[in-house]
């Protein structure tokens, strides 16, 4: 009996903390997750490489968060038109309209060679992927934020460690993603959101790749990606959108 009491005393704070951590992350997830409706939007991605100029990609994004499904269809540039990413079950398929083939890819991979990851466009799953190891308040420009330092609890997440700056409305304004060794990999800023129904979608996201860039005029310039999300909608989508058939049909 005493032993059981001891075990309880030792484990209780950890269990309570873990539960609290999960609740906080679940609230952050909930703000940008659409469990009661489909979600679609147009996403423009401008990739800025120092000394190489800009490239532009436009995709249509369709999400059905309740089934963890999503589809991204590339519309521009013309050379990639018709390429598509489809998540079914645990697998992410990449469709090549030229070869008429589907290949399995990873949500961790970079999207269309940009600094964005495929996982940036999917349902937020912080509560399932991370635990909070530390938190503290910090001012971020005009925002009063709480900073959460997170550690992955699964091996298949894109970044093993990450830091979030979260405003009291549970919206993430900035993230910093790190490697396991603590190397800063990239910074994502989301200064402004747009409300869709009772949920939120970023208006713009700026991603700065801490590892990639070039020396320009004696200064290291990082690669940057700006993502603009327009036409967000919660209108229901036909089931066919979340199938491989849809990608074959839409191929140029």
């Amino acid at each position: 009996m005493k032993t059981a009491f001891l075990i309880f005393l030792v484990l209780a704070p950890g269990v309570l903390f873990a539960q609290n951590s999960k609740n906080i992350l679940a609230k952050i997830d909930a703000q940008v997750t659409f469990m009661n409706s489909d979600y679609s939007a147009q996403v423009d991605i401008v990739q800025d490489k120092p000394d190489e100029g800009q490239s532009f990609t436009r995709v249509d994004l369709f999400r059905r968060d309740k089934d963890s499904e999503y589809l991204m269809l590339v519309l521009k540039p013309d050379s990639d038109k018709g390429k598509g990413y489809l998540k079914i079950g645990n697998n992410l398929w990449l469709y090549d309209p030229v070869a008429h083939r589907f290949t399995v890819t990873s949500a961790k991979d970079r999207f269309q060679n940009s600094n964005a990851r495929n996982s940036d466009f999917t349902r937020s799953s912080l509560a399932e992927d991370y635990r909070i190891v530390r938190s503290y308040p910090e001012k971020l420009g005009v925002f009063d934020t709480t900073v959460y330092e997170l550690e992955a609890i699964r091996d298949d997440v894109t970044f093993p460690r990450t830091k979030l700056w979260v405003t009291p409305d549970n919206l993430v304004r900035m993230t910093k993603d790190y490697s396991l060794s603590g190397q800063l990999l990239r910074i994502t800023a989301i200064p402004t959101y747009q409300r869709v129904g009772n949920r939120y979608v970023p208006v713009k996201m700026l991603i700065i790749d801490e590892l990639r860039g070039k020396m320009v005029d004696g200064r290291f310039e990082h690669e940057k990606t700006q993502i603009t999300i327009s036409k967000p909608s919660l209108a229901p989508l036909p089931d066919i959108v979340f199938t491989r058939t849809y990608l074959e049909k839409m191929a140029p």
Partner: protein
Amino acid sequence: MTRLFLAFLIFLTAVASFGQSAASTPGAGSASGTSPSGGSSSASTSSSIEGLFQDPAPDKTAPSNQRINPNLYNGNTMTFFENVNASGYYVTGWDKYYQYPVGTPYNAIDFSFGSDVRVDPTIRAYAQFDIQYPSPIVNPNATSAYNPYLNLLPAQGNLSFSNVIIQQMFLDYTLYNQVFFRLGRQTEVWGQGRIFNPGNFVNDIADGVAVKMTTNLWGLNVTAIGIKNDGFYNVASSDTASASSVAAAAKVESSLGPLNWGVSGFYQRNLGYKAEGYVKTSAIGSDLFLEGVVEQAPFQAGLPDDWIPSAVSGLYHEFGDGTTKWLKLEAEYFFSGRGTSESFSVTPTQFYGWNDQSVGLAMTSDAFNFMGTSPSFSWLHALKDGSGQVILGITNTTIPHVALSVVSVYIYGPDNGRYVLENPDTTEYRRLSFTFKATFNLSSQFTHS
């Protein structure tokens, strides 16, 4: 009592360790830009990011009347396109016996054109035609599971323009957003191998006509195809009108946890039965697959009636986590029980045992994209006879509308080895060759909506 005191101490320690908990608010204050392990990002990055938060636009409500339409082509659009490739190249190298060098000039022109008409979201008509010089030699036996590079060089024995070749001509129809049909001449690739692809049961579809239906049923992706290609299936002229001349193929694919799986089947009266199953997954950043195929020829009195197995496994990995993949690598292992009957247009009757194994490696790189240059490498090797084929190519597209290529092909092994007999140089059968090629390209399209 002592134990209770100890327990209390442990409890206090545990609480303290979680002191910086999610719910805590006291400032533990790490500066923005400091990593969890104490490293810091560059000052310029931090300041440029933090500048975004000094005077951000306020959060807003998205307009409710805007949405993207999943039917991209929801009105009348007509696209006309054309593409012209004019190539001149010179192949030099040593003949089969290394007795003397052989140089051959080639030239080729390929003019393709067509239209893509989408009337509404449910229907689409697409046509692509081709005129080629030299006129291609139609050789269905050249489709081999062992060698994707058989048609590397054009046959030079037919120096004339071809008639108009129908590359694709099909009508798409989508029924109630549930079932997708494609009717006519079309392209389709089945099977998992990128180098060895014995599971591509529909490889004859490109020069036949077909009806394809695809739908999604209870999470299963289902495809059914009927193919008419009398030349490939060696259908007798008296049977061309019969329904039994048509090949039937079906495929079902889905996911189970991290595994993708699929099964497919094929039947044609002259070719017999084929069945395939595969599993595929992504692990450690690589695509991995394993595929098994069995075939059985139609029963013929006096001949063996074996089920013939084949199998291929492979790995595809892209090295480089940045904007540039410095190496894309495909490695495959192939076992075939077909003996020397390598063409898809013949199903052997006898199982030739387990010793016919091959390995293949293919590599490309994006590392030189900034120079408009893309290198590629492939190596095929038959373990049973020691023959093989090595191809190294470099293509440069720096000059607008011009692609310059240098390709080296090396064929090795005994004279009766698989890759010696299947030398892609069908004119001079050079064992070692170097090809210098320039291709001028014009592509254009016009869309009216």
